[in-house]
């Protein structure tokens, strides 16, 4: 009974320990020259530009749903005039960042996990190391940095699409100019409402990039191992993004009241 409980627990702590060592190696590789700028720009394009349509679509859909749901609830409580503010605050505070984090963890997490796992099982990562090139520097650092740098920008894109489609859904029911929607929505808002929630997604980016690279580069076995790495990259990065969000929301409320 004790053993059946201790086995998974040991594995869990072992996984965390290995992740910590991996993170330390990545940090060391990131701060020592030479820097792989060409690979970083390639990853910025792969992770940023390629994720943009999906993130924009998810943000837009969220804006529509928020508008429909909020309209129904606020009308019931006689607070319909607060509808633009409710949409704006929901989008920029929470739904934009978390939807972006989850969409990117699905698309990019799976991609990085599968790509690196495939390189690992075909000995390509060993070949990089045998060529006296640091695989952490060449493979992990550019991917993780690209995730960290692109998540806030993608979040802004998701926010913008969410607000536009939130307004469209609202305007279709009750005519309202976009200017008026934005003016009412941002009334009383300041940079503390936009910047901390947007920049918290850098932590999401770190989690997604780190876990996907870690799961990919430690893969064992053939095609099954690649599949496991892709799945676990998505599952674990999504889970840790949600958990990190809980902590970050609390911290933002404390430091940016």
């Amino acid at each position: 009974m004790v053993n059946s409980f201790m086995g998974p627990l040991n594995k869990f702590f072992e996984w965390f320990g290995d992740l910590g060592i991996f993170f330390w190696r990545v940090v060391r590789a990131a701060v020592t020259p030479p820097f792989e700028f060409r690979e970083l720009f390639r990853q910025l394009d792969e992770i940023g530009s390629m994720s943009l349509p999906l993130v924009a679509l998810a943000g837009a859909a969220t804006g529509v749903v928020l508008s429909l749901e909020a309209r129904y609830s606020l009308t019931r409580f006689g607070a319909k005039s607060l509808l633009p503010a409710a949409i704006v605050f929901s989008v920029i505070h929470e739904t934009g960042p978390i939807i972006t984090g989850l969409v990117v963890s699905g698309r990019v997490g799976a991609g990085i996990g599968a790509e690196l796992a495939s390189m690992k099982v075909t000995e390509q990562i060993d070949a990089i190391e045998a060529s006296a090139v640091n695989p952490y520097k060449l493979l992990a650092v550019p991917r993780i940095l690209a995730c960290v740098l692109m998540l806030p920008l993608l979040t802004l894109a998701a926010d913008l699409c969410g607000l536009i489609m939130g307004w469209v859904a609202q305007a279709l029911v009750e005519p309202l100019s976009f200017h008026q929607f934005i003016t009412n929505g941002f009334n009383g808002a300041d940079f503390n409402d936009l910047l901390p929630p947007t920049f918290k997604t850098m932590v999401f980016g770190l989690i997604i990039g780190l876990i996907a690279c870690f799961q990919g580069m430690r893969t064992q076995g053939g095609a099954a191992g690649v599949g496991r790495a892709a799945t676990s990259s998505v599952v674990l990065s999504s889970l840790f993004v949600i958990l990190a969000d809980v902590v970050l929301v609390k911290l933002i409320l404390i430091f940016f009241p």
Partner: protein
Amino acid sequence: MDTIDQVAVKREETEKDGGAPVIAVEDLHKSFGNQKVLNGISLAVSRGETLAVLGRSGTGKSVLLRLIIGLEKPDSGSVRIHGQDIAGLALDQLGEIRKKMGFLFQHAALYDSLTVEQNVAFPLQHHKKTMSKSEQSDRVGALLAEVGMEGHLEKMPSDISGGMQKRVGLARALALEPDILLLDEPTAGLDPISAGEIDDLVLKLQAEHHMASIVVTHDLHSAKTIADRLALINEGDVVIEGNFEELQGSDIEFVREFLRHS
């Protein structure tokens, strides 16, 4: 069989090195979990010499090569490259040693997102930054010509055969002009003609570059062709080491059985 000139060159090189082996493996132990793979193996290879490591599948031959290049860490024992123990070296120090080593992986391990040309250029781009693009391109062309792949620069690894991939892998291994060459099953999975071509290529490269080479193989015919010495390993240690005739003359039961089935 070496020509008189080649023997003279080897002797001269060994004297220049003071007779010290380029690769010296001493009492090496390695286990994975409960499975003991290497059990106190010791080997030495000098400059210009080729050692073939033979043995049954799963006896740790490939692990031995991975330990020599530092992709795995030994449980105990030492690997000395040019007299320097690689255990405990920092990654950048190990990198300096790896630049002197070429490694051909069993399945070539070419980077599947890069063309043949980019694969061979990879070590040059990272370690010969003073080389201009045209110099790198010339060097890649020369390396690919050396392995008979000059007409396939733009192809992707998935578009060429296994034998061709190994040739490209060899060209990539030679890019930094190493003085150590490690070959993991260079003829495995190839038809007899392609395997013979790889053997001839290894012999030619060895004659031109005078590297210290270790070839891990199942293929006794290949080992006999390209190696100066053969080491047969079983249960993680060397059973016998010598030339082919010495193996043939052995009365050790495992050696006789191995030769009978080869």
